[in-house]
């Protein structure tokens, strides 16, 4: 108990406290000025907005992938199952380079999309794509064991009681998966907010357009404006914490309706 607490303090709490202390060097007015600058606000908006959108996409697509992996037996299923983990394992810079090459105007996917007038690389869409890429395993890996645990018999039971396919999904399957889906969403979101390596390659990093908050922090640091950097960092920390906390409460609430077996 003591050991785990000390370790937790050393690893997590002390650095976070340091961050807050550093930001205290600023007067409230300076702090406010940094945050309310257009560039900071836009960077935060890009980071949180796109991360949330990407997490939502991952929630939907991840659920479909999980469904296929758990419920169907098809050739190559194990390989697909393993491929899901690639974004976990791949160095983020490698992912960034690969995605950029793919979506660049002459890339395999970039060229046809450019012909349709859609530009992905070096725009916010690129950030969105990168965030989806790195977030997908979080949804799949949290939901998978829970779905595996749901006996297909309960779907048959619902069907024989007269429920349509749709009613079965809405009333029986989703409520059982609810907590796991929320956890997956929160993890994918948290990962996407914090993502740096893969995003900066594909983003183009135009201030106010496709500049993410972590990148702005790095830029401020390289300009030796440490207080500015910590101010942005504190805001990211607080917002992330609030969101994770909210999802956690939601999850607790959803879970309270399914007592442990």
């Amino acid at each position, binding site marked *: 108990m003591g050991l785990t607490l000390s370790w937790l303090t050393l690893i997590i709490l002390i650095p976070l406290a340091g961050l807050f202390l550093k930001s205290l060097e600023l007067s409230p007015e300076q702090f406010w000025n940094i945050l309310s600058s257009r560039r900071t606000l836009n960077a935060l908006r890009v980071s949180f907005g796109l991360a949330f959108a990407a997490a939502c996409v991952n929630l939907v697509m991840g659920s479909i992938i999980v469904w296929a992996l758990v419920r169907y037996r098809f050739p190559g299923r194990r390989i697909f199952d393993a491929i899901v983990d690639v974004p976990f394992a791949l160095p983020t810079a490698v992912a960034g380079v690969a995605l950029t090459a793919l979506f660049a105007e002459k890339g395999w996917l970039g060229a046809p999309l450019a012909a349709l007038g859609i530009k992905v690389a070096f725009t916010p869409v690129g950030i969105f794509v990168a965030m989806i890429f790195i977030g997908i395993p979080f949804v799949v890996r949290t939901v998978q064991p829970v779905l595996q645990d749901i006996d297909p018999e309960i779907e048959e039971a*619902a069907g024989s009681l007269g429920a349509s396919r749709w009613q079965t999904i809405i009333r*029986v399957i989703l409520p059982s998966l609810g907590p796991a889906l929320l956890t997956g969403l929160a993890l994918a979101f948290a990962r996407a907010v914090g993502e740096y390596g893969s995003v900066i390659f594909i983003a183009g990093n135009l201030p106010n357009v496709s500049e993410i908050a972590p990148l702005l922090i790095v830029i401020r640091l390289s300009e030796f404006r440490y207080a500015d950097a910590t101010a942005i960092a504190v805001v990211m920390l607080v917002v992330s914490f609030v969101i994770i906390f909210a999802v956690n409460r939601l999850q607790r609430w959803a879970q309270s309706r399914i007592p*442990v077996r």
Partner: protein
Amino acid sequence: MSIEVRNLVKKFGSFKALDGVDLKVDNGELLALLGPSGSGKTTLLRIVAGLDWPDSGEVSFNGEDALAQGARERHVGFVFQHYALFRHMTVFENVAFGLRVQPRAIRKDEATIRARVKELLDLVQLDWLADRYPSQLSGGQRQRIALARALAIEPRILLLDEPFGALDAKVRKELRKWLRSLHHEINVTSIFVTHDQEEALEVANRVVVMDKGKIEQIGSPDDVYESPATAFVHSFIGESIELPVLIADGLITLGDRPLRLAADGHAPGASRLFVRRHDMLVGPPGSGAFEGAVRHVRNFGPVQRAEVALSGGETIEIDAPRDRELRAGDTIGLEPRRYRIFAGT
């Protein structure tokens, strides 16, 4: 509702789960499908429920083609071996499920649904558990809730797949009696699957014995026990002594010893002789059709179970009354009170 199944065939890969099954179930019957695992009984039940589809054959309810309908339209109550309760719903909501998912046009109002669920929970004597979750119930309670849930939609047919298979022996016995009286009360045509002969004989009006995707015998519990139609039924139901015999020239021989049994009416050739354990009467040496030496004796309440080495070399177990004490080493004569012979080996 009567059920008729004609020439049903279902294959899983190269395995024939059902191999030409014909069955008629009358309105209000309580029928048991009895057989070892892999005999096709559950597959048959699932096809009747609409949870599986046959490769060929027909299923009709009251003369209407049931295969044209999915599980949803068939109005069949299905009870699963592992209950398949919705674990995120209370007992009350589990039972109410079938009423709540009805199409809006025929869905009852909330008060009617509540009254109906209450009625069903009373029927299964678990009204006091309405607000619990399935995880908080014992196995026997869960199965009764699963049954109440299936009955909520007023099914035309009730199907139960090994309903007591996951329960311990004592609860199983209680629920058997309970199911019988429940059926008497609601009188819905019911089919239940079991591999437990005692369960089938005790609960059902009629028993269908299955093996390897085929029906071996259909009859009352007395019929299948007293007059087994095939060697399989004889060995599967009740405890049997089985001996390989040869019939030739009006004689039955075991090994090289002719038995003092009449061979009338049996086709010559290699056959199997079946005797119930308690139908072997013990007499002095030299009397009866068989002779043997007692190896072990164990007492089970009113009977003694003896392992006897026949002089032909076979070893059998018999159940004898306690009026004549047997001892290891005794030589005895044995006379089958009743026996059956089936051709083949």
